[in-house]
Protein backbone atom coordinates (compact mmCIF):
# COMPACT_ATOMS: atom_id res chain seq x y z
CA UNK A 1 0.00 0.00 0.00
CA UNK A 2 2.69 2.46 1.02
CA UNK A 3 4.85 1.54 -1.91
CA UNK A 4 1.87 2.04 -4.19
CA UNK A 5 1.21 5.49 -2.77
CA UNK A 6 4.84 6.50 -3.07
CA UNK A 7 4.95 5.43 -6.67
CA UNK A 8 1.81 7.29 -7.55
CA UNK A 9 2.87 10.47 -5.82
CA UNK A 10 6.24 10.28 -7.52
CA UNK A 11 4.54 9.78 -10.86
CA UNK A 12 2.29 12.78 -10.31
CA UNK A 13 5.25 14.93 -9.35
CA UNK A 14 7.06 14.03 -12.55
CA UNK A 15 4.01 14.83 -14.66
CA UNK A 16 3.59 18.18 -12.90
CA UNK A 17 7.26 19.05 -13.27
CA UNK A 18 7.25 18.27 -16.98
CA UNK A 19 4.01 20.20 -17.41
CA UNK A 20 5.33 23.28 -15.64
CA UNK A 21 8.38 23.39 -17.89
CA UNK A 22 6.49 22.79 -21.11
CA UNK A 23 3.78 25.30 -20.31
CA UNK A 24 6.27 27.93 -19.20
CA UNK A 25 8.13 27.62 -22.47
CA UNK A 26 4.96 27.60 -24.56
CA UNK A 27 3.62 30.71 -22.90
CA UNK A 28 6.95 32.34 -23.58
CA UNK A 29 6.45 31.67 -27.27
CA UNK A 30 3.27 33.69 -27.32
CA UNK A 31 3.60 37.06 -29.02
CA UNK A 32 2.51 40.42 -27.68
CA UNK A 33 3.91 41.41 -24.35
CA UNK A 34 1.33 42.90 -21.94
CA UNK A 35 3.60 45.86 -21.28
CA UNK A 36 3.90 46.54 -25.00
CA UNK A 37 0.13 46.83 -25.18
CA UNK A 38 0.07 49.16 -22.21
CA UNK A 39 2.60 51.39 -23.95
CA UNK A 40 0.81 51.24 -27.27
CA UNK A 41 -2.46 52.32 -25.70
CA UNK A 42 -1.03 55.11 -23.62
CA UNK A 43 0.97 57.66 -25.58
CA UNK A 44 2.16 59.28 -22.35
CA UNK A 45 4.32 56.29 -21.51
CA UNK A 46 7.90 56.62 -22.63
CA UNK A 47 10.19 53.75 -23.68
CA UNK A 48 11.90 54.19 -20.32
CA UNK A 49 8.55 53.55 -18.64
CA UNK A 50 8.26 50.41 -20.72
CA UNK A 51 11.66 49.19 -19.62
CA UNK A 52 10.82 50.01 -16.04
CA UNK A 53 7.51 48.17 -16.12
CA UNK A 54 9.12 45.18 -17.80
CA UNK A 55 11.80 45.01 -15.14
CA UNK A 56 9.10 45.35 -12.54
CA UNK A 57 7.22 42.38 -13.93
CA UNK A 58 10.42 40.42 -14.53
CA UNK A 59 9.77 40.31 -18.25
CA UNK A 60 13.23 41.46 -19.27
CA UNK A 61 15.05 38.21 -18.44
CA UNK A 62 15.52 35.30 -20.85
CA UNK A 63 12.81 32.68 -20.69
CA UNK A 64 14.77 29.85 -19.06
CA UNK A 65 16.06 32.19 -16.41
CA UNK A 66 12.52 33.25 -15.62
CA UNK A 67 11.55 29.61 -15.32
CA UNK A 68 14.44 28.88 -12.99
CA UNK A 69 13.54 31.87 -10.82
CA UNK A 70 9.93 30.87 -10.78
CA UNK A 71 10.69 27.27 -9.87
CA UNK A 72 13.00 28.28 -7.05
CA UNK A 73 10.45 30.60 -5.52
CA UNK A 74 7.56 28.23 -6.13
CA UNK A 75 9.29 25.35 -4.40
CA UNK A 76 9.74 27.52 -1.36
CA UNK A 77 5.97 27.84 -1.26
CA UNK A 78 5.47 31.24 -2.87
CA UNK A 79 3.50 30.80 -6.04
CA UNK A 80 3.65 34.46 -6.85
CA UNK A 81 1.25 37.16 -7.88
CA UNK A 82 -1.25 37.33 -10.65
CA UNK A 83 -0.31 40.16 -12.95
CA UNK A 84 -3.86 40.97 -13.97
CA UNK A 85 -5.59 40.68 -10.62
CA UNK A 86 -2.69 41.94 -8.53
CA UNK A 87 -3.37 39.26 -5.94
CA UNK A 88 -1.50 36.12 -4.89
CA UNK A 89 -2.42 33.45 -7.42
CA UNK A 90 -3.81 31.03 -4.89
CA UNK A 91 -6.19 33.67 -3.55
CA UNK A 92 -7.65 33.87 -7.02
CA UNK A 93 -7.41 30.21 -7.92
CA UNK A 94 -8.72 28.40 -4.87
CA UNK A 95 -12.27 29.79 -4.84
CA UNK A 96 -12.42 29.17 -8.58
CA UNK A 97 -11.16 25.65 -8.11
CA UNK A 98 -13.91 25.03 -5.58
CA UNK A 99 -16.51 26.21 -8.05
CA UNK A 100 -15.16 24.03 -10.82
CA UNK A 101 -14.98 20.98 -8.59
CA UNK A 102 -18.65 21.52 -7.67
CA UNK A 103 -19.55 21.86 -11.33
CA UNK A 104 -17.54 18.84 -12.43
CA UNK A 105 -18.60 16.74 -9.47
CA UNK A 106 -22.29 17.38 -9.99
CA UNK A 107 -22.16 16.76 -13.71
CA UNK A 108 -20.11 13.58 -13.24
CA UNK A 109 -22.63 12.31 -10.73
CA UNK A 110 -25.54 13.27 -12.95
CA UNK A 111 -23.92 11.62 -15.94
CA UNK A 112 -23.26 8.41 -14.02
CA UNK A 113 -26.72 8.38 -12.50
CA UNK A 114 -28.28 8.62 -15.93
CA UNK A 115 -25.77 6.58 -17.88
CA UNK A 116 -25.88 3.41 -15.81
CA UNK A 117 -29.64 2.82 -16.00
CA UNK A 118 -29.60 3.72 -19.68
CA UNK A 119 -26.67 1.42 -20.33
CA UNK A 120 -28.29 -1.43 -18.43
CA UNK A 121 -31.60 -0.99 -20.23
CA UNK A 122 -29.82 -0.95 -23.56
CA UNK A 123 -27.70 -3.98 -22.65
CA UNK A 124 -30.61 -6.11 -21.61
CA UNK A 125 -32.40 -5.44 -24.89
CA UNK A 126 -29.60 -5.31 -27.47
CA UNK A 127 -30.61 -4.33 -31.01
CA UNK A 128 -34.11 -3.44 -29.87
CA UNK A 129 -35.70 -0.08 -30.78
CA UNK A 130 -35.05 1.08 -27.20
CA UNK A 131 -31.36 0.28 -27.63
CA UNK A 132 -31.38 2.15 -30.92
CA UNK A 133 -33.04 5.18 -29.37
CA UNK A 134 -30.56 5.31 -26.50
CA UNK A 135 -27.73 4.98 -28.97
CA UNK A 136 -29.09 7.81 -31.08
CA UNK A 137 -29.47 10.02 -28.03
CA UNK A 138 -25.90 9.31 -26.98
CA UNK A 139 -24.48 10.14 -30.39
CA UNK A 140 -26.53 13.31 -30.53
CA UNK A 141 -25.03 14.35 -27.19
CA UNK A 142 -21.45 14.09 -28.39
CA UNK A 143 -22.13 15.55 -31.81
CA UNK A 144 -23.48 18.94 -30.84
CA UNK A 145 -21.09 21.89 -30.42
CA UNK A 146 -21.21 22.52 -26.66
CA UNK A 147 -21.37 26.31 -26.86
CA UNK A 148 -24.26 26.03 -29.28
CA UNK A 149 -26.11 23.74 -26.92
CA UNK A 150 -25.46 26.16 -24.07
CA UNK A 151 -26.82 29.05 -26.12
CA UNK A 152 -29.95 27.10 -26.99
CA UNK A 153 -30.42 26.22 -23.32
CA UNK A 154 -30.11 29.87 -22.35
CA UNK A 155 -32.53 30.99 -25.04
CA UNK A 156 -35.02 28.27 -24.17
CA UNK A 157 -34.93 27.96 -20.40
CA UNK A 158 -33.83 31.41 -19.34
CA UNK A 159 -35.09 33.80 -21.99
CA UNK A 160 -38.22 32.09 -23.29
CA UNK A 161 -39.49 30.10 -20.36
CA UNK A 162 -37.85 32.15 -17.65
CA UNK A 163 -37.44 29.08 -15.46
CA UNK A 164 -33.75 29.37 -14.79
CA UNK A 165 -31.19 32.15 -14.65
CA UNK A 166 -29.25 32.73 -17.85
CA UNK A 167 -25.99 32.64 -16.00
CA UNK A 168 -24.04 33.89 -13.05
CA UNK A 169 -23.49 32.43 -9.65
CA UNK A 170 -26.27 33.77 -7.47
CA UNK A 171 -25.94 36.13 -4.57
CA UNK A 172 -22.39 35.97 -3.26
CA UNK A 173 -23.50 35.30 0.32
CA UNK A 174 -26.15 32.72 -0.54
CA UNK A 175 -25.82 29.12 0.57
CA UNK A 176 -25.16 26.35 -1.91
CA UNK A 177 -28.83 25.44 -2.06
CA UNK A 178 -29.82 28.94 -3.14
CA UNK A 179 -27.15 28.76 -5.78
CA UNK A 180 -28.43 25.47 -7.09
CA UNK A 181 -30.67 27.03 -9.70
CA UNK A 182 -27.60 28.67 -11.21
CA UNK A 183 -25.98 25.28 -11.57
CA UNK A 184 -28.76 23.51 -13.43
CA UNK A 185 -27.99 24.70 -16.96
CA UNK A 186 -24.18 24.48 -16.75
CA UNK A 187 -24.39 21.01 -15.21
CA UNK A 188 -26.92 19.90 -17.83
CA UNK A 189 -24.69 21.14 -20.66
CA UNK A 190 -21.68 19.32 -19.29
CA UNK A 191 -23.63 16.18 -18.48
CA UNK A 192 -24.96 15.79 -21.99
CA UNK A 193 -21.45 15.94 -23.37
CA UNK A 194 -20.09 13.19 -21.11
CA UNK A 195 -23.24 11.10 -20.86
CA UNK A 196 -22.79 9.45 -24.23
CA UNK A 197 -19.44 7.91 -23.52
CA UNK A 198 -20.50 6.56 -20.14
CA UNK A 199 -23.75 5.07 -21.42
CA UNK A 200 -22.13 3.29 -24.31
CA UNK A 201 -19.43 2.01 -22.05
CA UNK A 202 -21.90 0.86 -19.42
CA UNK A 203 -23.84 -0.93 -22.11
CA UNK A 204 -20.93 -2.84 -23.56
CA UNK A 205 -19.54 -3.67 -20.12
CA UNK A 206 -22.93 -4.96 -19.11
CA UNK A 207 -23.32 -7.06 -22.24
CA UNK A 208 -19.91 -8.53 -21.58
CA UNK A 209 -20.81 -9.31 -17.99
CA UNK A 210 -24.19 -10.79 -18.84
CA UNK A 211 -22.45 -13.34 -21.04
CA UNK A 212 -20.33 -14.59 -18.18
CA UNK A 213 -20.91 -17.96 -16.64
CA UNK A 214 -21.74 -16.76 -13.16
CA UNK A 215 -24.66 -14.75 -14.48
CA UNK A 216 -25.95 -17.79 -16.27
CA UNK A 217 -25.54 -19.69 -13.04
CA UNK A 218 -27.43 -17.04 -11.14
CA UNK A 219 -30.20 -17.18 -13.67
CA UNK A 220 -30.23 -20.95 -13.49
CA UNK A 221 -30.52 -20.75 -9.73
CA UNK A 222 -33.81 -18.97 -10.35
CA UNK A 223 -32.84 -15.40 -9.53
CA UNK A 224 -35.18 -12.87 -11.19
CA UNK A 225 -33.80 -10.89 -14.11
CA UNK A 226 -33.75 -7.63 -12.15
CA UNK A 227 -31.82 -9.16 -9.28
CA UNK A 228 -29.45 -10.86 -11.64
CA UNK A 229 -28.71 -7.65 -13.47
CA UNK A 230 -28.42 -5.34 -10.52
CA UNK A 231 -27.16 -7.81 -7.94
CA UNK A 232 -24.46 -9.51 -9.91
CA UNK A 233 -24.01 -7.79 -13.20
CA UNK A 234 -23.84 -4.14 -12.29
CA UNK A 235 -21.11 -4.41 -9.73
CA UNK A 236 -18.86 -6.08 -12.22
CA UNK A 237 -19.82 -3.75 -15.01
CA UNK A 238 -18.93 -0.78 -12.81
CA UNK A 239 -15.29 -1.72 -12.88
CA UNK A 240 -14.41 -0.67 -16.41
CA UNK A 241 -16.72 2.30 -15.99
CA UNK A 242 -14.65 3.75 -13.16
CA UNK A 243 -11.60 3.65 -15.39
CA UNK A 244 -13.31 5.44 -18.22
CA UNK A 245 -14.69 8.11 -15.89
CA UNK A 246 -11.26 8.72 -14.45
CA UNK A 247 -9.77 9.04 -17.90
CA UNK A 248 -12.58 11.33 -18.89
CA UNK A 249 -11.82 13.86 -16.18
CA UNK A 250 -9.39 15.71 -18.38
CA UNK A 251 -11.87 16.21 -21.17
CA UNK A 252 -14.54 17.12 -18.65
CA UNK A 253 -12.25 19.89 -17.57
CA UNK A 254 -12.04 21.11 -21.15
CA UNK A 255 -15.82 21.07 -21.35
CA UNK A 256 -15.94 23.14 -18.19
CA UNK A 257 -14.09 25.94 -19.96
CA UNK A 258 -16.84 26.34 -22.55
CA UNK A 259 -19.64 25.95 -20.05
CA UNK A 260 -18.12 28.46 -17.67
CA UNK A 261 -17.67 31.00 -20.44
CA UNK A 262 -21.22 30.72 -21.67
CA UNK A 263 -22.87 30.82 -18.27
CA UNK A 264 -20.58 33.34 -16.63
CA UNK A 265 -19.72 30.67 -14.09
CA UNK A 266 -16.58 31.53 -12.15
CA UNK A 267 -14.53 28.43 -12.61
CA UNK A 268 -10.95 27.50 -13.28
CA UNK A 269 -11.39 26.80 -16.97
CA UNK A 270 -12.36 30.33 -17.80
CA UNK A 271 -9.71 31.73 -15.51
CA UNK A 272 -6.98 29.71 -17.17
CA UNK A 273 -8.20 30.75 -20.60
CA UNK A 274 -8.19 34.43 -19.65
CA UNK A 275 -4.81 34.25 -18.00
CA UNK A 276 -3.25 32.56 -21.02
CA UNK A 277 -4.59 35.20 -23.36
CA UNK A 278 -3.72 37.97 -20.92
CA UNK A 279 -0.11 36.80 -20.61
CA UNK A 280 -0.61 36.36 -16.88
CA UNK A 281 2.27 33.92 -16.57
CA UNK A 282 1.90 32.94 -12.96
CA UNK A 283 -1.82 32.52 -12.99
CA UNK A 284 -1.87 30.50 -16.20
CA UNK A 285 0.93 28.27 -15.06
CA UNK A 286 -0.32 27.56 -11.56
CA UNK A 287 -3.86 27.23 -12.86
CA UNK A 288 -2.85 24.64 -15.45
CA UNK A 289 -0.80 22.75 -12.90
CA UNK A 290 -3.66 22.80 -10.44
CA UNK A 291 -6.06 21.56 -13.10
CA UNK A 292 -3.65 18.77 -13.97
CA UNK A 293 -3.30 17.91 -10.31
CA UNK A 294 -7.07 17.68 -9.95
CA UNK A 295 -7.24 15.36 -12.93
CA UNK A 296 -4.40 13.22 -11.60
CA UNK A 297 -6.09 12.97 -8.20
CA UNK A 298 -9.29 12.02 -10.01
CA UNK A 299 -7.43 9.20 -11.73
CA UNK A 300 -5.89 8.14 -8.48
CA UNK A 301 -9.25 7.99 -6.71
CA UNK A 302 -10.66 5.97 -9.59
CA UNK A 303 -7.87 3.45 -9.11
CA UNK A 304 -8.72 3.15 -5.45
CA UNK A 305 -12.41 2.81 -6.29
CA UNK A 306 -11.44 0.08 -8.71
CA UNK A 307 -9.69 -1.81 -5.96
CA UNK A 308 -12.57 -1.33 -3.56
CA UNK A 309 -15.14 -2.50 -6.08
CA UNK A 310 -13.20 -5.49 -7.20
CA UNK A 311 -11.98 -7.70 -4.39
CA UNK A 312 -9.81 -9.62 -6.84
CA UNK A 313 -7.55 -6.65 -7.26
CA UNK A 314 -5.19 -5.67 -4.52
CA UNK A 315 -2.94 -2.66 -4.36
CA UNK A 316 -0.13 -5.02 -5.17
CA UNK A 317 -1.69 -5.73 -8.52
CA UNK A 318 -2.17 -2.02 -9.12
CA UNK A 319 1.48 -1.49 -8.47
CA UNK A 320 2.39 -3.96 -11.11
CA UNK A 321 0.05 -2.39 -13.60
Amino acid at each position, binding site marked *: MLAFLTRRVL*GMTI*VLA*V*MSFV*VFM*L*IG*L*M*PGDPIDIMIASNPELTPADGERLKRLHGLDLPLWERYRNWLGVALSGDLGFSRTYNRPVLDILLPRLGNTVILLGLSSLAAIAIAIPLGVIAATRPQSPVD*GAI*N*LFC*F*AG*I*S*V*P*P*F*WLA*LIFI*LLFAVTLGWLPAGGMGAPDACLFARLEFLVLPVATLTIASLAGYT*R*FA*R*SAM*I*EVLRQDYIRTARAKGLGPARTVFGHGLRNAMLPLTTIIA*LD*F*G*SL*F*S*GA*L*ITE*TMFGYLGM*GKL*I*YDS*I*LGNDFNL*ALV*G*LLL*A*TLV*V*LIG*NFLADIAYAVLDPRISFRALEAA
Partner: protein
Amino acid sequence: MSSIAPLTGAAQSEPPLFWLRLRRSRAALVSAVILIIITSLALLAPVIEFLLGVDATRVDLFNQYAAPDSTHWLGTDEAGRDVFVRLLYGGRISLLVGLVAALGAAVIGTTIGLFAGYHGGWLDTVLMRTTDGVIALPLLPLLIVLAAIDLSKLGIPEAIANSEMASLYRIVFIIAIVGWTTVARLVRAATLSVRTREFVRAAEAMGTSSAKIMLRHILPNVVSPIIVATTLSIGVVILLESVLSFLGLGIQPPIPSWGNMLTNAQELATRAPALAIWPGTVIFVTVMAFNFLGDGLQDALDPRSVRR
Protein backbone atom coordinates in the same frame (compact mmCIF):
# COMPACT_ATOMS: atom_id res chain seq x y z
CA MET B 1 -8.75 -18.62 -37.53
CA SER B 2 -5.11 -17.98 -36.96
CA SER B 3 -4.22 -21.37 -38.34
CA ILE B 4 -5.29 -20.31 -41.80
CA ALA B 5 -3.59 -16.96 -41.61
CA PRO B 6 -1.32 -16.48 -44.59
CA LEU B 7 2.32 -16.11 -43.82
CA THR B 8 2.46 -12.65 -45.30
CA GLY B 9 0.07 -11.51 -42.65
CA ALA B 10 -2.13 -9.66 -45.09
CA ALA B 11 -5.43 -8.33 -43.83
CA GLN B 12 -7.81 -11.20 -43.36
CA SER B 13 -11.22 -9.67 -43.47
CA GLU B 14 -12.68 -10.58 -46.81
CA PRO B 15 -14.31 -7.67 -48.56
CA PRO B 16 -17.69 -9.37 -49.24
CA LEU B 17 -18.06 -10.27 -45.59
CA PHE B 18 -17.15 -6.76 -44.55
CA TRP B 19 -19.75 -5.24 -46.81
CA LEU B 20 -22.28 -7.76 -45.65
CA ARG B 21 -21.72 -6.73 -42.08
CA LEU B 22 -21.63 -3.03 -42.82
CA ARG B 23 -24.91 -3.37 -44.68
CA ARG B 24 -26.48 -4.80 -41.57
CA SER B 25 -25.94 -1.49 -39.84
CA ARG B 26 -28.49 0.75 -41.43
CA ALA B 27 -27.38 3.80 -39.44
CA ALA B 28 -23.83 3.47 -40.74
CA LEU B 29 -25.06 3.17 -44.29
CA VAL B 30 -27.30 6.19 -44.02
CA SER B 31 -24.40 8.07 -42.46
CA ALA B 32 -22.09 7.09 -45.27
CA VAL B 33 -24.60 8.32 -47.82
CA ILE B 34 -25.04 11.61 -45.96
CA LEU B 35 -21.30 12.09 -45.76
CA ILE B 36 -20.86 11.34 -49.43
CA ILE B 37 -23.53 13.91 -50.27
CA ILE B 38 -22.05 16.58 -48.00
CA THR B 39 -18.52 15.94 -49.25
CA SER B 40 -19.46 16.02 -52.91
CA LEU B 41 -21.50 19.18 -52.46
CA ALA B 42 -18.52 20.78 -50.72
CA LEU B 43 -16.17 19.65 -53.48
CA LEU B 44 -18.55 20.98 -56.09
CA ALA B 45 -18.88 24.34 -54.33
CA PRO B 46 -17.35 26.40 -57.17
CA VAL B 47 -19.58 24.67 -59.72
CA ILE B 48 -22.71 25.22 -57.64
CA GLU B 49 -21.64 28.80 -57.05
CA PHE B 50 -21.38 29.25 -60.81
CA LEU B 51 -24.68 27.51 -61.56
CA LEU B 52 -26.56 29.57 -59.01
CA GLY B 53 -24.93 32.72 -60.29
CA VAL B 54 -23.76 33.89 -56.87
CA ASP B 55 -20.36 34.83 -55.47
CA ALA B 56 -19.55 33.52 -52.01
CA THR B 57 -17.08 36.31 -51.26
CA ARG B 58 -18.82 39.27 -52.82
CA VAL B 59 -20.26 41.56 -50.17
CA ASP B 60 -23.61 43.14 -50.98
CA LEU B 61 -24.73 45.55 -48.30
CA PHE B 62 -28.04 46.09 -50.03
CA ASN B 63 -28.98 42.47 -49.66
CA GLN B 64 -28.28 41.64 -46.03
CA TYR B 65 -30.25 38.93 -44.23
CA ALA B 66 -32.23 38.12 -47.36
CA ALA B 67 -34.82 35.39 -47.08
CA PRO B 68 -34.24 32.18 -49.04
CA ASP B 69 -35.23 32.37 -52.69
CA SER B 70 -34.38 30.63 -55.95
CA THR B 71 -30.87 32.17 -56.14
CA HIS B 72 -30.01 32.23 -52.45
CA TRP B 73 -31.30 28.88 -51.29
CA LEU B 74 -30.65 29.59 -47.65
CA GLY B 75 -30.79 33.37 -47.88
CA THR B 76 -27.86 35.70 -47.26
CA ASP B 77 -25.79 36.61 -44.22
CA GLU B 78 -24.98 39.89 -42.50
CA ALA B 79 -22.77 40.95 -45.38
CA GLY B 80 -25.23 39.90 -48.06
CA ARG B 81 -23.30 36.80 -49.05
CA ASP B 82 -25.00 33.59 -50.04
CA VAL B 83 -25.29 31.35 -46.99
CA PHE B 84 -25.68 28.08 -48.89
CA VAL B 85 -22.56 28.47 -50.98
CA ARG B 86 -20.61 29.74 -47.99
CA LEU B 87 -21.69 26.66 -46.07
CA LEU B 88 -20.29 24.54 -48.89
CA TYR B 89 -17.01 26.42 -48.89
CA GLY B 90 -16.97 26.22 -45.10
CA GLY B 91 -17.55 22.50 -45.42
CA ARG B 92 -14.47 22.15 -47.60
CA ILE B 93 -12.38 23.72 -44.89
CA SER B 94 -14.01 21.92 -41.97
CA LEU B 95 -13.89 18.54 -43.67
CA LEU B 96 -10.34 19.14 -44.83
CA VAL B 97 -9.24 20.08 -41.33
CA GLY B 98 -11.08 17.07 -39.90
CA LEU B 99 -9.62 14.65 -42.39
CA VAL B 100 -6.03 15.88 -42.37
CA ALA B 101 -5.83 16.33 -38.61
CA ALA B 102 -7.37 12.90 -38.00
CA LEU B 103 -4.96 11.31 -40.46
CA GLY B 104 -2.04 13.13 -38.91
CA ALA B 105 -3.08 11.93 -35.48
CA ALA B 106 -3.49 8.41 -36.86
CA VAL B 107 0.03 8.41 -38.31
CA ILE B 108 1.56 9.59 -35.04
CA GLY B 109 -0.58 7.23 -32.98
CA THR B 110 0.14 4.24 -35.20
CA THR B 111 3.87 4.82 -35.08
CA ILE B 112 3.88 5.13 -31.31
CA GLY B 113 1.52 2.18 -30.86
CA LEU B 114 3.56 -0.06 -33.17
CA PHE B 115 6.83 0.72 -31.45
CA ALA B 116 5.38 0.34 -27.99
CA GLY B 117 3.58 -2.88 -28.82
CA TYR B 118 6.29 -4.53 -30.85
CA HIS B 119 9.38 -3.59 -28.88
CA GLY B 120 7.80 -3.75 -25.44
CA GLY B 121 10.07 -3.29 -22.45
CA TRP B 122 11.13 0.17 -21.31
CA LEU B 123 10.16 1.76 -24.62
CA ASP B 124 6.63 0.47 -24.13
CA THR B 125 6.56 1.74 -20.56
CA VAL B 126 7.78 5.22 -21.49
CA LEU B 127 5.51 5.57 -24.50
CA MET B 128 2.43 4.30 -22.72
CA ARG B 129 3.07 6.38 -19.60
CA THR B 130 3.35 9.41 -21.88
CA THR B 131 0.12 8.42 -23.57
CA ASP B 132 -1.65 8.09 -20.24
CA GLY B 133 -0.25 11.45 -19.21
CA VAL B 134 -1.48 13.15 -22.35
CA ILE B 135 -4.93 11.57 -21.98
CA ALA B 136 -5.17 12.80 -18.42
CA LEU B 137 -4.27 16.39 -19.27
CA PRO B 138 -6.85 19.14 -19.46
CA LEU B 139 -6.35 19.45 -23.18
CA LEU B 140 -8.37 22.47 -24.14
CA PRO B 141 -6.35 24.98 -22.09
CA LEU B 142 -3.20 23.46 -23.57
CA LEU B 143 -4.63 23.81 -27.05
CA ILE B 144 -5.26 27.46 -26.26
CA VAL B 145 -1.60 27.93 -25.41
CA LEU B 146 -0.60 26.16 -28.61
CA ALA B 147 -3.05 28.19 -30.65
CA ALA B 148 -1.70 31.44 -29.29
CA ILE B 149 2.03 30.94 -29.77
CA ASP B 150 3.91 32.92 -32.33
CA LEU B 151 4.77 30.71 -35.29
CA SER B 152 7.61 32.90 -36.44
CA LYS B 153 9.30 32.50 -33.05
CA LEU B 154 9.49 28.79 -33.80
CA GLY B 155 11.52 29.45 -36.90
CA ILE B 156 8.67 28.82 -39.29
CA PRO B 157 9.18 30.84 -42.48
CA GLU B 158 7.40 34.20 -42.45
CA ALA B 159 5.66 33.38 -45.70
CA ILE B 160 3.82 30.49 -44.10
CA ALA B 161 3.43 31.98 -40.64
CA ASN B 162 1.85 35.10 -42.09
CA SER B 163 -0.28 33.61 -44.85
CA GLU B 164 -4.05 33.63 -44.82
CA MET B 165 -3.94 29.87 -44.42
CA ALA B 166 -1.74 29.94 -41.31
CA SER B 167 -4.67 29.42 -38.98
CA LEU B 168 -5.60 26.32 -40.94
CA TYR B 169 -2.13 24.74 -40.82
CA ARG B 170 -1.87 25.58 -37.18
CA ILE B 171 -5.15 24.00 -36.21
CA VAL B 172 -4.40 20.81 -38.13
CA PHE B 173 -1.02 20.59 -36.50
CA ILE B 174 -2.09 21.17 -32.91
CA ILE B 175 -5.00 18.77 -33.12
CA ALA B 176 -2.79 16.10 -34.60
CA ILE B 177 -0.15 16.40 -31.90
CA VAL B 178 -2.63 15.98 -29.07
CA GLY B 179 -5.16 13.68 -30.74
CA TRP B 180 -3.04 10.60 -31.34
CA THR B 181 -3.57 8.87 -28.00
CA THR B 182 -6.60 6.72 -28.83
CA VAL B 183 -5.00 5.31 -31.95
CA ALA B 184 -1.76 4.66 -30.08
CA ARG B 185 -3.50 2.61 -27.43
CA LEU B 186 -5.57 0.65 -29.90
CA VAL B 187 -2.63 -0.07 -32.17
CA ARG B 188 -0.49 -1.11 -29.26
CA ALA B 189 -3.14 -3.54 -28.03
CA ALA B 190 -3.60 -4.98 -31.50
CA THR B 191 0.15 -5.20 -32.03
CA LEU B 192 0.59 -7.09 -28.78
CA SER B 193 -1.81 -9.76 -29.96
CA VAL B 194 -0.41 -9.94 -33.48
CA ARG B 195 3.19 -10.02 -32.33
CA THR B 196 2.92 -13.55 -30.97
CA ARG B 197 1.32 -14.91 -34.12
CA GLU B 198 3.15 -17.49 -36.19
CA PHE B 199 3.79 -15.40 -39.28
CA VAL B 200 5.54 -12.77 -37.18
CA ARG B 201 7.58 -15.42 -35.41
CA ALA B 202 8.46 -16.89 -38.77
CA ALA B 203 9.55 -13.56 -40.15
CA GLU B 204 11.67 -12.95 -37.07
CA ALA B 205 13.25 -16.33 -37.45
CA MET B 206 14.16 -15.47 -41.02
CA GLY B 207 16.02 -12.43 -39.71
CA THR B 208 13.71 -9.82 -41.14
CA SER B 209 14.45 -6.38 -39.75
CA SER B 210 12.06 -5.15 -37.10
CA ALA B 211 11.07 -2.09 -39.16
CA LYS B 212 10.11 -4.35 -41.99
CA ILE B 213 8.15 -6.67 -39.71
CA MET B 214 6.23 -3.79 -38.24
CA LEU B 215 5.48 -2.33 -41.64
CA ARG B 216 4.83 -5.44 -43.68
CA HIS B 217 3.43 -7.92 -41.22
CA ILE B 218 1.95 -6.14 -38.25
CA LEU B 219 0.56 -2.93 -39.73
CA PRO B 220 -1.81 -4.64 -42.18
CA ASN B 221 -3.27 -6.60 -39.30
CA VAL B 222 -3.92 -3.64 -37.06
CA VAL B 223 -5.48 -1.53 -39.74
CA SER B 224 -9.10 -2.03 -38.64
CA PRO B 225 -8.86 -0.22 -35.30
CA ILE B 226 -6.96 2.57 -37.05
CA ILE B 227 -9.72 3.03 -39.59
CA VAL B 228 -12.39 3.02 -36.91
CA ALA B 229 -10.57 5.42 -34.63
CA THR B 230 -9.73 7.77 -37.48
CA THR B 231 -13.32 7.87 -38.71
CA LEU B 232 -14.51 8.69 -35.22
CA SER B 233 -11.88 11.33 -34.71
CA ILE B 234 -12.77 13.22 -37.91
CA GLY B 235 -16.05 14.06 -36.21
CA VAL B 236 -14.31 15.00 -33.01
CA VAL B 237 -11.93 17.32 -34.87
CA ILE B 238 -14.77 19.10 -36.68
CA LEU B 239 -16.37 19.70 -33.32
CA LEU B 240 -13.09 20.84 -31.83
CA GLU B 241 -12.56 23.28 -34.67
CA SER B 242 -15.89 24.88 -33.86
CA VAL B 243 -14.98 25.10 -30.19
CA LEU B 244 -11.64 26.71 -30.99
CA SER B 245 -13.43 29.14 -33.29
CA PHE B 246 -15.75 29.96 -30.44
CA LEU B 247 -12.73 30.79 -28.31
CA GLY B 248 -11.42 32.97 -31.13
CA LEU B 249 -8.59 30.60 -31.98
CA GLY B 250 -9.96 28.71 -34.96
CA ILE B 251 -9.87 29.32 -38.68
CA GLN B 252 -9.73 33.06 -39.25
CA PRO B 253 -11.99 34.97 -41.63
CA PRO B 254 -12.23 35.58 -44.56
CA ILE B 255 -11.82 31.80 -44.95
CA PRO B 256 -15.20 30.38 -44.00
CA SER B 257 -15.42 27.30 -41.82
CA TRP B 258 -18.46 25.86 -40.15
CA GLY B 259 -16.97 26.72 -36.80
CA ASN B 260 -16.37 30.39 -37.49
CA MET B 261 -19.68 30.76 -39.29
CA LEU B 262 -21.45 29.41 -36.21
CA THR B 263 -19.45 31.55 -33.83
CA ASN B 264 -20.09 34.61 -35.95
CA ALA B 265 -23.81 33.93 -36.08
CA GLN B 266 -24.02 33.46 -32.36
CA GLU B 267 -24.07 37.17 -31.63
CA LEU B 268 -26.73 37.62 -34.26
CA ALA B 269 -28.84 34.77 -32.94
CA THR B 270 -31.76 37.00 -32.09
CA ARG B 271 -31.80 38.80 -35.41
CA ALA B 272 -31.08 36.01 -37.80
CA PRO B 273 -31.40 32.67 -36.03
CA ALA B 274 -31.09 30.85 -39.34
CA LEU B 275 -27.47 32.00 -39.61
CA ALA B 276 -26.74 30.08 -36.40
CA ILE B 277 -29.01 27.18 -37.14
CA TRP B 278 -27.52 26.18 -40.49
CA PRO B 279 -23.88 25.82 -39.55
CA GLY B 280 -24.90 24.32 -36.21
CA THR B 281 -27.00 21.76 -37.97
CA VAL B 282 -24.42 20.77 -40.56
CA ILE B 283 -21.82 20.37 -37.82
CA PHE B 284 -24.26 18.29 -35.83
CA VAL B 285 -25.29 16.10 -38.74
CA THR B 286 -21.76 15.61 -40.02
CA VAL B 287 -20.26 14.76 -36.66
CA MET B 288 -23.14 12.44 -35.92
CA ALA B 289 -22.70 10.74 -39.27
CA PHE B 290 -19.00 10.21 -38.64
CA ASN B 291 -19.82 8.73 -35.26
CA PHE B 292 -22.38 6.31 -36.67
CA LEU B 293 -20.11 5.38 -39.53
CA GLY B 294 -17.22 4.72 -37.18
CA ASP B 295 -19.48 2.65 -35.00
CA GLY B 296 -20.75 0.65 -37.96
CA LEU B 297 -17.22 0.14 -39.28
CA GLN B 298 -16.17 -1.19 -35.94
CA ASP B 299 -18.92 -3.79 -35.99
CA ALA B 300 -18.16 -4.68 -39.54
CA LEU B 301 -14.39 -4.89 -39.22
CA ASP B 302 -14.26 -6.71 -35.95
CA PRO B 303 -16.90 -9.41 -35.69
CA ARG B 304 -15.86 -10.36 -32.19
CA SER B 305 -16.29 -6.92 -30.81
CA VAL B 306 -19.28 -6.06 -28.78
CA ARG B 307 -20.54 -2.72 -29.88
CA ARG B 308 -19.08 -0.20 -27.53
